[in-house]
Structures are given as C-alpha cells and as structure tokens.
C-alpha cells in the first residue's frame, strides 16, 4: 500500500468490468432459522446466530409514526458514551453507558432527510438533501427558494441535552451522505466530502451552482463532490472550498461507437438549431437502418458528457492510508486523498451486476475493499428467493499497486419475504486479529456479520433477523385488498461494532444493541480480542485504523483460527495452548520467560504448517506479549 503511488493516466485507470469468473452463492434450500418468522412491528419473531439482542429501544415519541419515510431512522455516529442516530425528521442522542438500557438524552426535531450524522468532538454534522428541508427546520415544506436547506447542518453538541444549530452549509447538490476527512497537516481542520444523487440547484436558488456539461470545467458544479472545509475552532466559518473532481475522464468506454454517437448528436443538435424536447434523439451508429428511420420517442436529447458518473452515493475515507473508496453510481473508485483539497483518482471499476455502487469499507490493512450494491434503493425486497444472488449484495475487491481487482460476491444466505425491503447496506469492521469481518445492516434482512478474509470465499459468521413489519397478503386477496398493505419500510439502516457492542439503527422500530456470542465460526477469544479495541470516536465512513494491544486473547485468536482451519497440526496447537495456559497463570519475568520459549517453539512450527503465515504472526504476537510482560 505504501509503495510509490503512481498517478495513472486517466484513460488507463478506467477498467471496464468483465467479471464472468466472479462467483456468487445460491440461496440455501435448508431450514434457515430466519425462514417464516412471525411478522409484527414490536412482536415480530426473532432469529439469531452468533449474536444476541442486548436491548431494543423504541423510537422517541417525536418520530414514532410509520408514515412512509417521513420519520424513518437513518445512520449512526459514535463518541464518548453517546450514539447519534439520524432520522429523516431530526436526530436522537442516546446515552449507551449501559448498553442494556440506552437512555434518550435529547431529540431534535428538524426535517432533514436523510439525516446521516458524523461527530467530530463537539460538532455534529447532519446531511440534508430533501426538497422539503427548510433552513429553519420547520415542517410544511419549502415555499420560497431561500428557505430551502440542502447541504450539511452543523450542530454544537457540547451539551448533548441541548444541541444548538450553528450553521447550515448550503451545497449545490445537497447532501445525501457525507464523509469527514481530517486534514493530514492541521488537527484543527476537517474536510467534509459531500455525496448526493441530485442534480445541481439552479443559480437562482444558490449562487454559483450550475449543471455544466464539461466535467473538467472548474465552474461546473455537477461533476464534483462538494468539499466543505471546517475550521474546528470556528465552525461558523465552515464553507465549500472546492470540488473533488474525481469523475473527469471517466467516460463509459471511449470507443469509436461512443464517439460516433456523440458526433451524430452534436450534428443533430447543430443542424436543427436547438435542443428542445421535440428533437428526435440521435440514433447510435450500428443500429439497423430500420431503427434509424423511425422517429424516436420524446426524450431528453443525448448529452454525451452526461454519460459518465457525476456523483457518488457514498464515499468511505481511510485517512491513515490516505485512501478513499467512492461508490459512485456505475463505478467503484479508488482515490488518493493525501491532499484532501486535491484528490487523485487511482482506479475505477465497473460491473454490470452492480445496480448501484452504494458504499464501501476497507479491510484494516487496506489490501481489500468491500463495495455494496443498493439494488432497489433500500425500499424494495431484493433478497427474495427469486432475486438474483449476485445483485444487491457485497463484492470484494483487492487492491494491488493501486489497482482494483474484483473477486466474489456475498449476499445474506437467507431468502427474505416479499414484505421485507432488503439489500446490502451500511456497516463497518469487527476488529478480530487475523480476520476481516464486516458487520452491516440489510434493512429487513437483519444485521449480518460476514467474513471476507479470503476475497474469493466470503461467508456468513453471525446474524440477527426479525420477521417482516407487515403481514403477508391473505390468500385470495383481491386488487382492492392490496391497499391494506402498508408497505412499511423498516429494518437495519446500518450496524456497527463499537467498543464491544453492535449498534443497529432500525428504520421503523428504533434502536438495537447486540453482542457477539461464540460459535464454531467465531471463538470467545476472538470476541475478547475485539473488545480490546477501543475507539473514543467512530464515524464509520471515515474509517479508523485499529491495532491490538499485546494480550492473550489476541494470541489465542490466531491459535483458534489455526485449529479451525487446520493450519497447524493438532498436537502442536495443543501444546501451544498448554504453554499459553501456563503463562496466563504466571506473571512478570516468569510469564515473559514462558512466552519467549513458546515463541521460539512456534517459530519452529512455521515450516511444517499449512497456514505458515498465521503461525508466523502468532509467534510475533507471543513475543510482543512476552515483551509486555516484563
């Protein structure tokens, strides 16, 4: 990762996906405990494996209504002992000092879809995109353009019981999501990258905005991610300072066919002197003459410049690696953010199986990145037995010399009902030594932990799932009865591991806290090792790098993994286990001596092991523990 980072020419950086070799799972036909769970809002059936529900808290009363998407919960951010939960109509601050009994500290009512939060110190940032969001937070919608708030709201939460709105930072395309990136040089500055799906606003609504068609044009507000610079000591001075132009040159395959099409369009436009909707659309080269002869139906004339992506749904920064993964419509991008004001695209990957590159998470070592596909937008039931398995899930890509290579797909191996909106959604890593574990929300597909250590063979490690919010239609339901379905959108928006627990934001129901429990796929030692990683502040889209302290559960995690994967002969793992048990009972120099002797013994086991790398890493961990024991 840290080798010289070549800035590739844009043309060669574009890789058009041909991924026929990428394999996908199939839905299992067996008796999955998630099948046939009882429907219900608060009394739905539950199934869990490898985790247990510690607490469930209903939405606060202000948001407790199931009127479409108006009051659904969105994403989470974490700091100190507080969890910040976004909602399309405001946000909630939970005190989770006791995860078994989360306590509402404050509820802020402020119409702000979709309300994704980030927390930096005492500053809470909230994404605002919807057209009905007002600068003053009120209900009732926007009557005058000046009332419209689309961008990022900044709150002072130094008193979490009474958050104060400091500033609305308006952006041209609003803010569907955002990502905080600390300035690598100035600890008092953070940058916020804004992602969004909308076109730029009109200049009459927000000065300087325009939907230009040249991606390289610095005045074009369409083909860029707005970048807000926040001086942390003067958040009221936060403003858009630049645009991350990471799409420039990213055309869908600059083949001759495309160029001919573009030229034909230009000719058609020029020849007829206008681009009104009544203009016949240009017919691409290579289309049979019969088609060319037919007058095309009315559509916006083809604008070749609009064919490449001009937005990201989400970008995940990995600041300590100076990397950013952009999930940008039809592309997954890898971007160098060494200078956050001047990001440089390193590679781009496309895959026709992916409906919508939605979000991303890096492996802790930065050698892999998981992209998710939000097929159906999160409101559709895309995990049914008939839904294609390679769509609406995750895809694992490896990063080598700043190039992305696509590997396997992963989708929850449990067919959900037609009443359950389900697709791969937000999540983050579970810090387990020697493994890459991803916990994420799948809307009504539940909370799921998957292992992507082997990018070609991801598998499920743990899950928690509820039955659908709505009941299925009764047999023989007629057309009129269809209106009975409420079509409630629910489930886990995002699920994140933070300081020993998994927190999940339930769109319709509220707030879940879960805990991992040991199974044959995840041992007690691995869970204990994960608990050693503490993060004071956690914004999942600004991925933290984690390290483990020297500790027995860390060593034992590797040992458990070697037993699980037969990476080392059982007589050897048995004797290592014994020595570790002896050392655990000792202290100080005696423990150090036992561990040092053990490390040398394990060195000798490397050669004969079928997983030598893991044995080697374990020896190093034993040595680190020995050093810490003196």
């Amino acid at each position, binding site marked *: 990762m840290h080798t010289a980072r070549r800035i590739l020419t844009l043309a060669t950086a574009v890789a*058009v996906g041909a991924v026929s070799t990428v394999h996908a799972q199939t839905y299992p036909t067996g008796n999955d405990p998630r099948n046939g769970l009882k429907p219900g809002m608060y009394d739905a059936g539950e199934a869990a494996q490898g985790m247990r529900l510690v607490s469930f808290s209903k939405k606060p009363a202000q948001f407790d209504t199931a009127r*479409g*998407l*108006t009051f659904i919960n969105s994403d989470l951010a974490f700091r100190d002992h507080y969890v910040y939960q976004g909602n399309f109509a405001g946000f909630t601050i939970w005190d989770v000092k006791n995860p078994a009994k989360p306590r509402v500290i404050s509820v802020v009512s402020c119409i702000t*879809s979709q309300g994704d939060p980030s927390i930096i110190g005492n500053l809470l940032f909230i994404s605002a995109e*919807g*057209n*009905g969001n007002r600068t003053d937070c009120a209900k009732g*919608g*926007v009557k005058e353009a000046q009332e419209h708030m689309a961008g990022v709201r900044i709150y002072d939460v130094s008193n979490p019981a009474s958050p104060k709105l400091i500033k609305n930072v308006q952006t041209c395309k609003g803010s*569907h999501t955002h990502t905080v990136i600390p300035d690598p040089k100035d600890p008092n500055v953070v940058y916020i990258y804004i992602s969004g*799906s909308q*076109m730029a606003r009109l200049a009459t609504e927000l000065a300087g905005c325009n939907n230009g068609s040249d991606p390289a044009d610095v005045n074009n507000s369409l083909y860029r991610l707005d970048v807000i610079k926040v001086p942390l000591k003067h958040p009221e001075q936060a403003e858009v300072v630049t645009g991350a132009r990471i799409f420039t040159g990213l055309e*869908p*395959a600059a*083949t001759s*066919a495309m160029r001919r099409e573009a030229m034909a369009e230009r000719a058609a436009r020029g020849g007829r002197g206008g681009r009104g*909707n*009544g203009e016949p*659309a240009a*017919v*691409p080269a290579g*289309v*049979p003459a019969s*088609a060319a002869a*037919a*007058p*095309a*139906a*009315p*559509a*916006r004339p*083809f604008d070749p410049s609009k*064919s*490449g*992506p*001009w*937005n990201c*749904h989400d970008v995940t920064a990995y600041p300590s690696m100076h990397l950013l993964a952009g999930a940008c*419509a*039809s*592309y997954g991008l890898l971007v160098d953010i060494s200078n956050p004001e001047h990001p440089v695209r390193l590679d781009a990957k*496309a895959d*026709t199986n992916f*409906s919508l*590159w939605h979000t991303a998470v890096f492996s802790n070592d930065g050698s892999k990145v998981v992209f998710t596909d939000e097929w*159906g*937008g999160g*409101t*559709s039931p*895309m995990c049914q037995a008939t839904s*294609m398995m390679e769509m609406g899930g995750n895809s694992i890509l490896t990063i080598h010399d700043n190039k992305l290579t696509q590997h396997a797909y992963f989708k929850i191996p449990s067919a959900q009902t*037609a009443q359950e909106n389900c697709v791969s959604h937000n999540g983050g890593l579970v810090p387990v030594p020697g493994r890459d574990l991803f916990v994420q929300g799948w809307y009504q597909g539940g909370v799921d932990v998957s292992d992507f250590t082997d990018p070609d063979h991801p598998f499920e490690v743990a899950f928690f799932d509820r039955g659908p919010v709505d009941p299925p*239609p009764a047999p023989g339901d007629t*057309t009129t009865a*269809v*209106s009975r*379905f*409420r*079509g409630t959108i629910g489930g886990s928006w995002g699920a994140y591991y933070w300081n020993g627990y998994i927190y999940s934001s339930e769109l319709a129901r509220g707030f879940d806290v879960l805990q991992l429990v040991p199974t044959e796929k995840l041992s007690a030692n691995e869970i204990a090792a994960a608990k050693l990683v503490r993060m004071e502040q956690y914004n999942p889209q600004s991925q933290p790098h984690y390290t483990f302290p020297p500790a027995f559960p860390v060593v034992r995690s590797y040992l458990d993994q070697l037993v699980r994967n037969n990476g080392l002969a059982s007589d050897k793992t048995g004797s290592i286990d014994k020595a570790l048990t002896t050392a655990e009972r000792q202290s100080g120099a005696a423990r150090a001596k036992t561990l040092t002797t053990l490390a040398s013994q394990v060195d000798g086991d490397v050669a004969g092991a079928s997983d030598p790398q893991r044995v080697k890493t374990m020896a190093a961990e034993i040595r680190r523990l020995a050093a810490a024991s003196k």
Partner: protein
Amino acid sequence: MNPLRHRGRAGAFIVAVAFVVAAPKAYAQDPAGMDHHHMAGMDMGLPPVSIPNGALFTEADVRFMQGMIAHHAQAIYMSRLAAGHDASEHLVKFAQKIDQSQQAEIRLMQQWLRANGQFAPDTSAWRQMPMPGMLTAEQLKQLEGAKGADFDRLFLTFMIQHHEGALKMVSDLFATPLAGQDVDVSVFANDVQTVQTAEIGLMRRMLSNL
C-alpha cells in the same frame, strides 16, 4: 410480492402488437405536446387529482407517480422480451435486473398512491399513457422483431432512450414549483435518477462492447 403476477396482469404483457397500435397515435407522434398531456393527466383517462389539506405533495407528484408506473411497465415489457429473442446471456441478466427492480418500484408507487387516496394505474397502463422516452409503436415493433445481437443492440439503444425519459420526468418534477417535497416521492424520484443514470452508463458500455 410480484404485483404483476399477483394481480393477474402478466397476460397483458403477452398480448401482442394489436394493443400497441391502438395506443393514441397523436401522443406518440406529438412529442412537443407530451408535457402538457402528462401534467393534465385527464387526457389519458386518469381521474382528476385532489390534494388533501396539509399534504406536502402536489398534482405534479401524483401525476409523476402515476406516469412512472406506466413508464416502468413498458420497461418491464421490453425486458421480458429478452429471453425469448436470443439475447446474449449478459443482456438477459441485465434485463432481468430491470424487470425485478421496476416491479418492486411499481408496487411502491401504487402503495404511495393508494395510501394518499389517489388513483393507482395498473401495469397495463403503459398502453394508454405515453411518457417521455417510451418507445413508439414503430420502435416496439422493431424490438419485437429483432433477434440475437440485433436485439441486444436495439434493446440497449431503446432502453437508454427509455431511461433518459425517466430522468426527464424526474427533472420535470423537481423543476415544478412546490413539487418533489413529499419525502417518499423525493426519495423515490432521487432513486430513479441515481439508478437509471447508473444503468445508462452501464448500457452505454454494453453497447460499445457489442
């Protein structure tokens, strides 16, 4: 749930060109007038819209949701032709993706319309409700007559046109004063914009790789 099958409408898709020809020709060949017809709605046999007090949605929102049902239904019709027309494996899968996504979205739109006391067209509506980018009778005939690589090319060409029409419907909606503020409509319209923009990108690549 598959609304199309559930409601016994699948058959309507299989009915051949006769219906298509019966579609009001004036609309199909009068693109300039499209927007007016679209907004008025009543010209297409849709009942008038009445907006409850305090609602955030407007007539344009209702007409958008009604119109997009018809728009999606034609896309599903087109997609279901792929398997029987010797399309490439890749294209059949892509068409299946459009079919499954847009079926689910039709259900959403119908639910939104019903929940808000508005008329919800069914999936046969596309025969009577021409929307921006929808294929003309002539184009449909061409697609229905194409096989193999010709089908791939025509499908992609026409579906790009079709998707661009959907994007136009979204931008028209957002350009209408006071429209697009209901959260459900706004989220849905943004989803259409995001997904179909991405799919246009994909289709352009597929087209150039033919």
